């Protein structure tokens, strides 16, 4: 086995093939280094904050992942502590529902008293 005996076309495929893989991924690198800049330019979000009595315009696009994590955690903790306003009335409300045979206990399976779980005496007494 010697690499020198390999045909020249094999060397061509080797070098060219690897180079094409590199070029393809380098293109992607270039595009994805540019895209955040374009998005930032397009959104161009700015906020006005008051610092030392003066209004200052600040770019809020440059927020690091750590800052985002801190904000998200703070919001999460705040919302967990926050409860809905409740009426503070703890008595049980009487609920009136219209009669429906679908939810009637009268027609439930347990009321028929099958012989295997209801004694004879119980069945008669039910009548």
């Amino acid at each position, binding site marked *: 086995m010697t690499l020198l005996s390999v045909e020249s076309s094999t060397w061509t*495929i080797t070098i*060219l093939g690897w180079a094409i893989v590199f070029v393809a991924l380098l293109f992607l690198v270039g595009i994805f280094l540019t895209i955040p800049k374009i998005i930032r330019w397009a959104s161009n979000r700015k906020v006005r904050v008051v610092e030392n009595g003066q209004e200052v315009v600040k770019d809020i696009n440059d927020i690091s992942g750590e800052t*985002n994590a801190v904000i998200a955690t703070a919001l999460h903790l705040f919302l967990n502590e926050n409860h809905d306003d409740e009426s503070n009335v703890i008595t049980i409300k009487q609920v009136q529902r219209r009669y429906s045979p679908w939810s009637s206990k009268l027609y439930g399976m347990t009321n028929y008293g099958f012989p295997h779980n209801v004694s004879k005496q119980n069945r008669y007494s039910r009548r």
Partner: protein
Amino acid sequence: MKKHITTFITLTFLLCLQVVFGTDIMAAPEAVGAMDGLTTLWNFTGFANIDYFNLIMISVGLFFIFLAVKYDYEPLLLIPIGTGIILGNIPGAEAYGVYAKDYLTSLVASGQLDAGQATPSVLEYLYFGVQQGIYPPLIFLGIGAMTDFSSLISNPKLMILGAAAQIGIFATFLGASALGFTPQEAGAIGIIGGADGPTAIFLSSKLAPHLMGAIAIAAYSYMALVPVIQPPIMRLIIPKKERAIKMKPPRAVSKTEKIMFPLIALLLTTFISPSALPLLGMLFFGNLLKESGVTERLADTARNSLINIITILLGITVGASTQASVFLTTDSLKIFGLGALSFIVATAGGLLFARFLNVFLHKNNKINPLIGAAGVSAVPDSARVVQQEGLKTDPNNHLLMHAMAPNVSGVIGSAVAAGIMLSFLL
């Protein structure tokens, strides 16, 4: 326990009978009636048709299952493949394996079977998906739907490491050519260096279908052995001081960028390498399903049910394609040797390029060269190995997220490389 021992002894006795007296032990030409029936039955059993090569392959299958169960090496792949190897090497069951058609055709040609009786087997039908390259793109769909490209988008320069590690593919291509394989065979063998099972199967099904079993088994075996192969090379190439480099945390990536990534990457890579369309198209389609946020049901199916079904079918049929008569050849041994070499070269290529890249980077923005090893696209095993090696040097240095970037770019790189090989060699 006693019952198992009795069964084992009985089976061993039957095997010994065949080994000592040969396959004609019960063949008595003059026998009639019950004896004749028993003779026929005996001739149809695996004991009568046993071959030492079959036993070797069955042992390999059992070894794969052992590795998966005992050491947790890629169990989702090694258990189906190991079982498939056992299924494919049951003696006397050629009519039910993945090569049933060839076997039955030879029986019909020799007059031992009517043409009407030569019906294909279930395994052969399932193997169709491997032969025609259907399963690998579907696996890529699932991979796309489960991969988060955020780390790659947040630090795009790490993508180059995925390209650097593809040197394994092309170095193996060169080595295989030097060993006397045809250019098509060498291309199919070279892709083992991509450390990507579906890509290896896809390319070998197109370029060298007769070597597919050996190539797939080599690719999956070495992928399973990534935790064994990579750490010594990492320690050899990267000095301890550089292994301790801490990288900046990745920036937050917006949803727009996440949606744009699969679309742009799909257009760019398939324009450069159209032959890789089945793989890259499905990979980025799967990722778009995930990132679009409006097709969660489809993404969920792709990354769970679909990929699980295809993994089962792919594993069992690829395993079953390793019949001893086809698999145990000197070519297979060469392929295994080249496969190991390609993994080593790919890992070393990624690591060395990472060190080279550091020369041009600012002092405060250096990358930990260990992540170069994740450029081989064994997702997520090689990234996990990088994390473990990083922790060994500094218990507070977590490299997993950073390593995922070259890892997923390795998947893209190996698919592009497969497309290039197809364009040049098909």
